[in-house]
């Protein structure tokens, strides 16, 4: 994975709560066995409506998407993250994120930034009124700011996730470093406590 340090760009205001992963990428597009190529189908049903915010060319090239509570709810499909990345989005800002989706974003290097309601209100209004204005997200200092420096907030992130994102480390490789401990755990545990699938 590439290291993630800063994301700077325009922000799309998607002013809806509980945006679910069926909207982000409908199940009929999950039949493929690749990790890429989902961008054209992202928010497919909503993009069929001409006034949907993603159809507004003023947001072309945006790298950030702003939404409300419980973004990414529903299915565990990581295709939702791949679809968002396919749109060129590298960071999401919302009141809260669904747990599995948030984990999937971390895996793909998409930042999920949780802010208070009033901060979301401010950023949402700003993105609507000043669509060309940019935001700057800096992972090291855990801050999201307007590019003109007039507004800034700190966000929280799990220190381990931050450590890994800043260095672009391979999650599996990091865990494999613990292989001797995992083997010791397997050897010590009660062999009867779990069934085997090989019969």
């Amino acid at each position, binding site marked *: 994975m590439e290291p993630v340090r800063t994301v700077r760009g325009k922000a799309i205001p998607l002013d809806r709560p509980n945006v679910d992963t069926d909207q982000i990428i409908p199940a009929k597009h999950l039949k493929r066995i690749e990790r890429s190529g989902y961008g054209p189908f992202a928010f497919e049903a909503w993009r069929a409506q001409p006034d949907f915010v993603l159809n507004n060319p003023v947001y072309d090239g945006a790298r950030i998407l702003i939404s409300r509570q419980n973004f990414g709810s529903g299915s565990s499909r990581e295709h939702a993250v791949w679809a968002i990345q396919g749109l060129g989005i590298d960071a999401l800002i919302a009141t809260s994120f669904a747990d599995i989706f948030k984990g999937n974003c971390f895996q793909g290097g998409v930042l999920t930034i949780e802010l208070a309601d009033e901060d979301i209100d401010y950023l949402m209004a700003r993105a609507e009124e000043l669509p060309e204005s940019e935001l700057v997200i800096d992972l090291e200092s855990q801050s999201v700011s307007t590019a003109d420096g007039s507004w800034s907030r700190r966000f929280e992130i799990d220190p381990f996730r931050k450590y890994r994102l800043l260095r672009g480390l391979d999650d599996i490789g990091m865990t494999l470093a613990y292989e001797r401990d995992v083997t010791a755990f397997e050897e010590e545990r009660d062999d009867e*406590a779990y069934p085997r699938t090989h019969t």
Partner: protein
Amino acid sequence: MSEPRTLAGKVWDQHAVPSPLQEEARIAALGGERGAAQGERPDLLYIDLHLVHEVTSAQAFEGLRMAGRSVRRPDLTLATVDHNVPTIGRDQPNPDPVSATQIATLQQNAKEFGVPLFDIFDIRQGIVHIIGPEQGYTQPGMTIVCGDSHTSTHGAFGSLAFGIGTSEVEHVLATQTLRQVRPKMMSVEVTGELGPGVTAKDVILAIIHEIGVHGGIGHIIEYRGPVIQALSMEGRMTVCNMSIEAGARAGLIAPDETTFAYMEDRPQVPAGERWERALDRWSRLATDDGAAFDTEVTVDGSQIVPYVTWGTNPSQSVRVTDRVPDPQGMPTETEREATRRALEYMDLAAGTPIREIRIDRVFLGSCTNGRIEDLRSAARVVSGKHVAEGVRAMVVPGSGLVKQQAEREGLDAVFTRAGFEWRDAGCSMCLGMNPDILLPGERSASTSNRNFEGRQGPGGRTHLVSPEMAAAAAVAGHFVDVREVMSWSR
């Protein structure tokens, strides 16, 4: 005395892998200094059972292949095909070449990596969350994961079970572990006693209505109280299944005599002295008296009645005796707007009595309500009756074995005589992926778990209900209060 612990806390503690060897090596490599994330690492959780299906695994196996990695514990891994299989005409070539490739890819990966597979013509094939408990692979106190958000179903046995994404699937395949932040614990206690005709599905819809679709974020829910204890295992699975619909990471229920009676003699459940030792182990899992929960919710079970969703998320529901709500009655502008949008999508007018909503399709099945008990309950409602004119109704058993059992009991004949289609096992119309979908504008009464926009097919409109309510709606052509059309012997 050690600190009193919750059920989920105990299972977690038993699976957190201590890492003294690696920490020692790390500190030595850093010249004796403690590293940046030292002491801040989330737990490394050992996974006892990894369930795999065709839709979220192909990219994970490909990742292993690219990195030259193998599956660490194929003997703790089980695959099946469920999401993207047709539920009729399986003897014919798959009409969709992209789907055919996805299914063939799992077959190939299972073979290459040595993972056991319940393939499409195996009688044990079925929805991944139905076959685990059915075979007895799902046991109390285990950690279970799957690339599917409804993995929480297995929590009904007192196991810690949760959904993961494809990168995490790859991580578990390679390491049999996951790096996880310990969630908060939520107690949902359901007090009192359910009335006749009120089911586990109504209980979980009532809970989601109460705590909201985001109320469980960051939590594991333990369902407790007399109503939960009185539920069958099938009912408990229905409740735990929809934990994710309240935003929760997982949902579970303490194992008890009901659990053990369901498990005994299933193929993978230990027998003899091993069974006795297992019972002893499992009986110690229940939450200790005085254990602390981060959040506590109480729902009065005696007030629960059959629920019907009217909107586009599972918390947007009302009692069958109520009306479609008015957006103006919602407390915040965001909710008013969300309600307006939902009613527009659902093509419903505020104030419409739920019982006047007419339906086009009925779907009986899914990991929520595709078990034998669900089919029996629905069959009792439709027995001797017929699906209303203009309604297309289908029954999709959750597994090949559920189908076989239902046929032994003659339920297939009850359904087909009533005008239902009787199909092969799979996820079917729950998710709008395989050929079983709603057409644009069609309205369904569905026993599945999600009523999101387009969930059952683009433009389709989904109302979530219990199997009994779906069956009664199929016969009437519109929603009815199942308590009024059935006499319930208790």
